[in-house]
């Protein structure tokens, strides 16, 4: 039963991943400039000095004279095997660059996600349990401030405060240089926004559940207050919270781009920005593709989580 659900859901994510791949390919195709000239290591300005025979040879070599659809299929075939081409700018395999950057970003996302889930849910629960009291107002204020704070600006403020004014944390640099503490400020910077969203959703979902009859029943049969809240309340309020958490991947990845850049963390975000500054279209394609696939997979995991936490759902 469960295997069928997983298999069906896996199949459903295939068209999405193919679509993302198509988008990444078209992105490369749309970019101005001739990839053959770029591959020869020349700028567009030098176009007049290019030997036409040499250009034709490079075109042939890169398969650029074939019809678009053939180029697409060839590119797709290679991309699915993890071969995103060789960067014209750094002459390194794009896949190598992407997979080197991946662990940093994954570590950052895992840390951020767990921080956001724990603090967001705690804030939301406190807010719901103490509804209408001052604790609730403070928690809600934190949540609205969190939703409204621009991630990249918050990162700068954190850096200014906690690595310059009060030098507790390193200003920037990778984990390999400072250890895990290098991740502290970036994690905090990215986690604020999703934590606030999770808090808001936890609060409203909890409030809805707490008004139901079964909560009164649970209280009436003499269960402790916190047991009622956590076991009967939270357990039933968790579904919309999981949905919001599932949506956070895009949010986190978006935040990671700016924050990795600010704190000089060598992750996917920094790589993407590097590709954009250097106009390295293959690198951009590779990064977009990997991020898109990761997003599709995270959606998949969320859907499967639903099945696990809520036995009523059997899609």
């Amino acid at each position, binding site marked *: 039963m469960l295997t069928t659900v997983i298999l069906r859901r896996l199949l459903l994510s295939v068209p999405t991943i193919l679509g993302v791949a198509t988008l990444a390919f078209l992105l490369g195709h*749309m970019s101005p400039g001739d990839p053959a000239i770029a591959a020869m290591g020349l700028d567009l300005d030098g176009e007049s000095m290019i030997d036409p025979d040499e250009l034709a040879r490079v075109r042939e070599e890169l398969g650029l004279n074939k019809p678009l659809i053939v180029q697409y299929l060839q590119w797709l075939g290679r991309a699915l095997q993890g071969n995103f081409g060789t960067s014209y700018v750094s002459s390194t395999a794009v896949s190598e660059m992407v997979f080197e950057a991946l662990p940093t970003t994954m570590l950052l996302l895992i840390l951020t996600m767990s921080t956001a889930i724990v603090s967001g849910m705690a804030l939301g629960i406190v807010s719901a349990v103490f509804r209408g009291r001052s604790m609730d107002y403070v928690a809600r204020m934190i949540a609205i401030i969190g939703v*409204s704070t621009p991630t990249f600006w918050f990162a700068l*403020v954190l850096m200014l405060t906690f690595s*310059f004014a009060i030098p507790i944390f390193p200003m920037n640099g990778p984990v390999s240089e400072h250890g895990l503490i290098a991740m502290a400020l970036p994690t905090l910077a990215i986690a604020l926004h999703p934590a606030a969203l999770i808090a808001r959703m936890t609060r409203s979902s909890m409030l809805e559940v707490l008004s139901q009859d079964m909560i009164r029943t649970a209280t009436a049969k003499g269960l402790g207050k916190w047991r009622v809240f956590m076991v009967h309340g939270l357990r039933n309020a968790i579904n919309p919270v999981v949905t919001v958490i599932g949506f956070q991947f895009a949010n986190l990845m978006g935040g990671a781009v700016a924050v990795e850049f600010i704190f000089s963390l060598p992750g996917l975000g920094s790589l993407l920005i590097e590709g954009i*500054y250097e106009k390295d*279209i293959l690198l951009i394609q590779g990064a*977009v593709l990997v991020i898109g696939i990761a997003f599709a997979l995270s959606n998949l995991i969320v859907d499967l989580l639903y099945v696990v936490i809520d036995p009523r759902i059997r899609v």
Partner: protein
Amino acid sequence: MTMTPSQTAEQATATKNDWTLLKESFKHFLSSKLNRFSFGLTMCLLLLIVIAPFVATYPYDEINPALGLSPPSWEHPMGTDQAGRDVFSRVIYGARTSLSIGLVTVLFGLLTGVTIGAVSGYLGGWVDEIIMRIVEIFMSIPGIIMALALVSVLGPSLPSIVLALSIRRITQFARVARGSVLSVKSQDYVTACHAIGMSNLRIIFVHILPNCIGPIIVLASVLLGNVILTESTLSFLGMGIQEPTPSWGTMIAKGNEYLTFAPWISVFPGLFLFLTMIAFNLLGDGLRDHLDPRGGSAV
């Protein structure tokens, strides 16, 4: 979905005209203190688009190297930047840039997205299936990454920034519009429209869409803040508005270089950005409670 206020409104048109109802609804919306605050703040910010030249005390591009990096003072309440430009004036003009880009983007996204979503939901079948697949693909790439990639391909000009920011909004509006259309399309009054032989387009735009307007307005107010945030992130990363046009994101990025000894250059535009986000988020919350009490997860 249960009855939305606008639906009840339609049934009441026999006794009251739409204008009075709208006025009453608006009055009710403003009866909350928080809504008054967010509405007022939003209006002030929007007003800045028009009156920026009268509020700013200096032209945004007036360079005065002798005063470079001077801290906040009476003449320059937010200090000056590396070129001696008045940060306060640039922040005010920056509001104009950010908010007008936000408005244009959201309007463009709304018109395109709602049309696509409404047609998709109304027609159903394979058209709907294909459109929704495409929407899902676009939604699989985080907004800022999509925008970054597009701007890097198209070049950082104003139209390409608006286009890059709109694509994601189009898909979000399309989703919400489709959902609302699906929820009203099987109602009796739509069947009645069919029965008297109205064209599909007329049914969608004249009869169905006005009844789905609640969730769309809520989404628009939330996305306005969202777009402004994405634009400033783009500008911060150097892929948005280019100097000397003032934009909060660009100012924060420039100030980043002087962060440790002239923090005012990036702190003040950031505060304004934060204030704008607060205004739009609170307004969105208020509008959601007011217009769409059941729908919680628009974004």
